[in-house]
């Protein structure tokens, strides 16, 4: 293998390693979504989890809720802050989306940003879409 081939290979390798850097220079970056409280949520000021806890743990919380509702038909969730909530993602005023009205902003923007594709919406429907 001659030197030119080695150096070509090396350049390709370095470019590949640096791809996260130059890729973001040549493409437009979608900025991180800014969480915004809208509608009911803005006024409510209390939720099932604290802010950072919510960001990290909402998927497992929803998972626990699902099991609780489906298997034990227990729909009451007592949060750490003492309040009790209805375990529901999308049905009724007291559900997640009942309070956080805008699914696109509340769910999708972050999920898209982090490239997460939860299968919640294969069964649930965005209440806004029913109307």
């Amino acid at each position, binding site marked *: *293998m001659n*030197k030119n081939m*080695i*150096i070509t*290979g*090396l350049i390709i*390798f*370095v470019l590949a*390693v*640096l*791809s*996260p*850097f130059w*890729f*973001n220079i040549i*493409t437009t*970056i*979608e*900025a*991180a*979504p800014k969480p915004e409280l809208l509608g009911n949520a803005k006024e409510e000021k209390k939720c099932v989890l604290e*802010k*950072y806890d919510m*960001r*990290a*743990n909402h*998927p*497992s919380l929803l*998972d626990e809720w699902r099991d609780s509702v489906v298997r034990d038909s227990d729909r009451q969730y007592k949060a750490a802050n003492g309040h009790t909530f209805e375990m529901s993602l999308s049905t009724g005023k007291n559900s997640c989306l009942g309070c956080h009205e805008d699914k696109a902003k509340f769910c999708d923007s*972050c999920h*898209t*940003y*982090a*490239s*997460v*594709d*939860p*299968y919640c919406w294969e069964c649930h429907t965005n209440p806004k879409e029913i109307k």
Partner: protein
Amino acid sequence: MNQKYLIPLTTVFLLFLVAYTGVEGAGLHQVFGIFIPYLAVLAFLAGFVYKVLGWASSAVPFRIPTTCGQQKSLPWIKQNCIDNPDTSTGVLLRMVLEIFLFRSLFRNTKAAFNKNESNTLSYSWEIFLWLGALAFHYSFLVVILRHFRFFTSPVPSCLKFLEYMDGIVQLGLPGLFISGAVLLLATLFLLARRVLDAKVTYISQAADYFPLFLIIGIAASGLSMRYFTKVDIVGIKTLTMGLVTFSPIIPEGVGGLFYAHLFLVSILFAYFPASKLMHLGGIFLSPTRNMANNTRAKRHVNPWNYDVKTHTYEEYEDHFREKMIEAGLPVDKEE
């Protein structure tokens, strides 16, 4: 003997703790989140390039492929074009199979000596090292590629497709990525081999255990964040995007485990060029694999070939002339 793996194990633990406590206790987010990752990438690239250029600067004086099949000779004898290539296409094919499918390792056999019964040696096909190595390398590759979701926004659809395929078993919540689990299992297998096979234990150095423990640490902390302890993904992505766009920021609410994970990755990057992990580059440059076996057909030139003192025919004849004449052997100079 224990030293060989106890020291690396302890080192990886300490490294983990340094980052964890550094962030949680001393609040050194900037150091572990920005400063060290940048340094690690620099060290990785500089070290890698330096090492490969060092190899490239050495000559390849002779064409010495290891031939693993029939040579090209007479037209009616079937040549093994891959294992004994005489063209660059054949070499390319051989290298592709070597690099992507670990073809040589696939041949691996295990020898056993049946003492007392028949005193015979037997060889059996030993596929597990090949399987383990393949599983390890490919799962690691997929894991690395998946992490590009932290470095791109919007995330390209090819990455989403990769995530989809990797999560196709749809197990648990969040959905299991096969690659992560395979990575951890494969590294544990490779570690078990080193510890349990007496021959491999004997040849193993601390430098063999260290990267294994390091990668196990990285995989375990990563898996832990995804499946068990949970982290704020969006927060982490703002940090990683900040890094790759040269406008680093430290998000709030991201805990020590993430920084420990990042620190172990940084250590792996920085350590890489200084270690056996350079086989990543070296496999391309191995003269026993990347050369065509055509030395008799095409002359290979040695850049440093120099003249040597030989014993010439004239010297030989001068020495033996009388005896040669007497024996009736032809000579150049009859005296």
